[in-house]
């Protein structure tokens, strides 16, 4: 019997596909998310919009709170560790969380990322282009999400990142071995990963959209662009009615290709107030390349 294999790490992400992973800060929110149909919850101290507003250093959530959330729901529980913070990751693994998000939403602890091969628990990491995505995978990430720009309720960055990754993968198609070799050294990743992406014409792991999703239409847009599923951070619990927004975004991910259904799903909702990217003081997506 083998545990902690890469097949098992990637496998859990496969099970989450077509689903919505919701940020929650306490057990009550976790239950709301589960009831709405979330496939997993992300335990954190504050949603990204509040992290932005509060300023200062953002760290891993209080283990006591994470434990409460784990006890409250039966769906997988993810939690965020700071980029490069091996100790936070080890604490989260010891707690038994199901996935660690090595996240740019928290203040980085190092310029380098965690060597994720050394852990039994799987990791998801953010990326805004193919190079970042493949670097994280070569470090052991078993799932990728776009970085987007968390806490803004503004979808443009997530769209850009998804399209960038798709275009870069498409452009690999007709490259010679010599050219892909050059790209591999430019990206600082093994050639085998580039070749895998070229052959599969997608990332070799599950790829979710994240960062700025605030409405069912935003979620549907990301699914239309080819995302395997959706992370929603501030978009749910900063909405006028979190229960309704949560349920609607879950429904929108299932029926993303059915505009008539989406019209019904989107009716009577009030999304979070968004921020323009140019007006941001901190761009979280610039953290950890």
């Amino acid at each position: 019997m083998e545990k902690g294999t890469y097949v098992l790490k990637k496998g859990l992400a496969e099970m989450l596909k077509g689903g919505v992973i919701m940020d929650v800060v306490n057990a009550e929110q976790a239950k709301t998310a589960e009831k709405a149909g979330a496939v997993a919850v992300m335990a954190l101290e504050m949603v990204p919009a509040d992290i932005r507003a509060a300023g200062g250093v953002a760290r891993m959530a209080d283990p006591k709170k994470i434990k409460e959330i784990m006890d409250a729901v039966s769906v997988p529980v993810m939690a965020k560790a700071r980029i490069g913070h091996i100790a936070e990751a080890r604490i989260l693994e010891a707690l038994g969380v199901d996935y660690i998000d090595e996240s740019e939403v928290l203040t980085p602890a190092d310029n380098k990322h965690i060597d994720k091969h050394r852990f039994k628990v799987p990791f998801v990491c953010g990326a805004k282009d193919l190079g970042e995505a493949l670097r994280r995978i070569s470090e052991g990430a078993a799932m990728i999400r776009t970085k987007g720009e968390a806490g803004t309720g503004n979808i443009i960055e997530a769209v850009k990142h998804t399209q960038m990754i798709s275009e870069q993968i498409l452009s690999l198609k007709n490259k010679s071995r010599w050219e892909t070799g050059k790209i591999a050294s430019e990206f600082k990743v093994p050639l085998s990963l580039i070749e895998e992406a070229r052959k599969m014409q997608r990332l070799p792991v599950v790829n979710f959209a994240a960062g700025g999703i605030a409405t069912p239409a935003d979620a549907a847009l990301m699914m239309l662009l080819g995302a395997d599923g959706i992370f929603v951070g501030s978009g749910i619990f900063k909405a006028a009615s979190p229960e309704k927004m949560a349920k609607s975004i879950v429904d929108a991910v299932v029926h993303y290709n059915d505009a008539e259904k989406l019209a019904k799903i989107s009716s009577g909702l009030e999304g979070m107030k968004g921020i323009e990217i140019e007006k941001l003081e901190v761009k979280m997506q610039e953290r950890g390349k």
Partner: protein
Amino acid sequence: MKIGVLALQGDFREHIRILRKLDADAVEVRMPKDLNGIDGLIIPGGESTSIGILMKRAGMDREIKNKHNDGMPIYGTCAGAILLAKEIIGNRQLTLGLIDISVKRNDYGRQIDSFEADLSIKDVGDFKGIFIRAPRIARFNNHCQILSELNLEPVMLRENNVLITTFHPELTGDARVHKYFLDMAQEHKELKDAPEDAANQNSREALLEL
């Protein structure tokens, strides 16, 4: 042969890929109308709470039960097995109750306790079992046929036209378990397509007896 895969959430694409490898006509099932004309249904791995909620919202639970009453074979992997079970111990989420077993969710532990194990499956052979936050079968009716065990506990069971595995053959690329299910569907299809002949046969026999 046309096999539907419940595509509300989970790893339905992996099932479809394997079915197509076996030359079956695999279709995504999202709404009740998608169940029309299929010879078998697979409920994939995923999050059972999420799939259960979505199934109810779409009114699929009743339709699937109707199809089961007509004898259509159904196969559930992991979350699919949970959703087919008669009872989930310690949890009140929706199930279809189409196989007489009781399951305990995540009973091997959380993700770090997910595991790979070598299995032996009746009529199939050696098989790589991938167990991810898998349920444990705590009770089963004697009518259930045990097709594979791990540490003396069943991990693959069949009761009439319902098949379940608590592991994920769809993640292995090995199509033999799906082939087993296709054979079940084929048998059902032949029975379904033949009733007229059978009826004629019966009446002819009845005539002969006269």
